[in-house]
């Protein structure tokens, strides 16, 4: 049940100094693809920190 980023809501933290989810993920499970965050479901440990820090609430646990 990994974290999943909704591409329609995610704006890659445009205008902010960094992508909050990527910056805070303890498992290095998130990368930027075409300007949007994507979670690697094999690395995700469902800790939910990305859900907590996302400024636009684009992430849910599948």
């Amino acid at each position, binding site marked *: 049940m990994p974290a999943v980023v909704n591409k329609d809501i995610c704006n890659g933290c445009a205008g902010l100094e960094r992508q909050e989810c990527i910056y*805070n*993920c303890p*498992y290095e499970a998130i990368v930027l693809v075409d300007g949007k965050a994507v979670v690697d479901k094999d690395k995700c*440990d469902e800790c939910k920190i990305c859900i*907590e820090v996302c400024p636009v609430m684009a992430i849910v646990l599948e």
Partner: protein
Amino acid sequence: MGMEKVFTPIDIGTMTLKHRVVMAPTIHEMCYGGHPTEAYLAITDTYARSGVSMVCVGGATIDPGPTGDVFPNALSIASDECIFGLQRLAEVIKAQEAKACQQVYHPGRAAARYWAQSNPEMLPWGASANVPFMAAPKWEITKKDGKWHAVNVMPPAPVREISTAEIEQLVRMHVLAVLRARKAGFDAVNIHFANVTLVMDFISPYTNVRTDGYGGGWENRMRLPCEIIQATRAAVGKEYPLIVRIAADQGLGEAGIQLQDTLRYVVPRLEEAGVDAIDLSAGVLDHTPHKIIPPMYDARGCYLNHSEAVKKVTKLPVIVAGRLCDPRMIAKAVENGRCDVAALSRPLMADPLMPKKMIAGKPDDVRMCVACGYCMSEAGWTKYCAINAESARETSLPKVEPAENPRKVLVVGGGPGGMEAARVLRERGHDVTLCEKEAQLGGTLRIAAAAPLTREWRTFTRWHMQQIEKLEVKVRLGTEVTKELVEELAPDAVVIATGSVPSRDVPGADQPIVVLEEEVLLKGAVIGKKVVVIGGAFWDVETAINLADQGKEVTLVREAESISMDRLSPIRALPILFGMLQSKHVKPLFSTKVVAIEKNGVRVADNAGNASFLEADAVVLSTGRIPNRKLLDELRGVVADLHGIGDCVKPRCVADAVYGGRLVGARI
């Protein structure tokens, strides 16, 4: 682990902590007459040996009278006689080269918990009298018309607004407590203005409606805490480290302290008053205990957003607690500056060696706290831990020591009980074979681990499996053990941990619309939209919520008056009662009995006997479990050294299975 900042030192005033992982102040009770028992010294010693840079002994009451008496087994620092016992605590901690910190507090309204009922003249102290204390229930068991009834006879306890003379006394009590802690040899004091303290009640608009200089507006409400710090500084000097614990947010919305207030009014004034560090908690005990001690439904490290915000308004080091069970998350949070110090309470109960494992670069070896709330339930209240049977049992469990006579042991059943037995037996040097009839380990816990609400359980199963692999336990999956197989393997001892099966003891349980929890939560059975969950098990409401999350229209039928507060513990039951049932569109029918499951639904009746019919596409049974004792019974008299543990003896919960496994593992 790659993140080194967590292992660097930090100064709290004149005190240097060798790294950023500390024990959070935790109340264990376990003290008689206010003084620590040997058992309390033993548990403190466990934390001191964990590798934390500072051990904080949980709240000691500063008030010697009945108004400071929060429960019979609480630690006291209210008189000079207390110093001897506290000195022993400080010594136990410092012997392991950790800094020793003592938390001190006035319980205020909470003094009502045990004695107020018999002492109506001496009401507990409050900032104001407007909010009575909601004590834990006290059950009176009576027989009426031939039937037994349990009635909660603990009404809300009234409190009294204290006078300015009593405020002065309160300030003095704090100062004296800090002086005693220093005399007892503590390196620092944690002055408690959170959770269930009188001073928090002064800070909060919820509990402070005073019309004197100590109430009405933030300046006035912060007057008392600042006076306490100033008076303490005057007595103890600038060098003695003072940490203050506050609630970043009480979880009461606008009615209480909110994060924005903490940032704007609380922290800056405390910094000005002269504290050396801010320690962040949240919640208020008798209204939002699930905010003080967040359950598994909340994210790991859920209060890092508080500490991150507070760090922006102060130069002081910021300590934070709240589900900091994940070593990688802690390291990352410190690296990113979201907090300066991580305070651990439950994670140290779950794995008292967590800091040492982090320092050794072995994060996967950590048995992560799953925040199940067992330590806060009726069953676990002395800080027993569901996944670490040794917590609070330091003086009452046989130690895990090498077996004098290594033997061949067969463990039947790979659930939490069986895996714990296998792990401990193998650690002691026995030759262990673990047989599991399914294709994977985990047992009944796999059902909980598959359900979104209770996913965190899977980290415990994962840890167990890793340990078993590391220890080279011989695991045979897809192997159902029979009497014949036992005779063939000829082990010297057998541990039966075959668990339980779902109970189907409901009229009409054989109807085609009936479905078991494991089928729908674990095996992905597809069912229709209208679902009735027939409850009875303590986790029934979680099953109902998980189904609602799948998009079902769920009705939960339960004979009891409410959900199981005792076993779920308030930290899981309250968020369910306060929000989830409504927001997840689960319709609870409490005090309702099932008459029979029929072809298209369920016939039910309330306490008055009024019957009704609930239409359903599917009926999920969550009534409880029955022991799977077949093998245990067959082997009696056949195997000389035979042991039964966990649900197959009596269905209870994970904690009982793990305790059984740990006990039998050390005995054989």
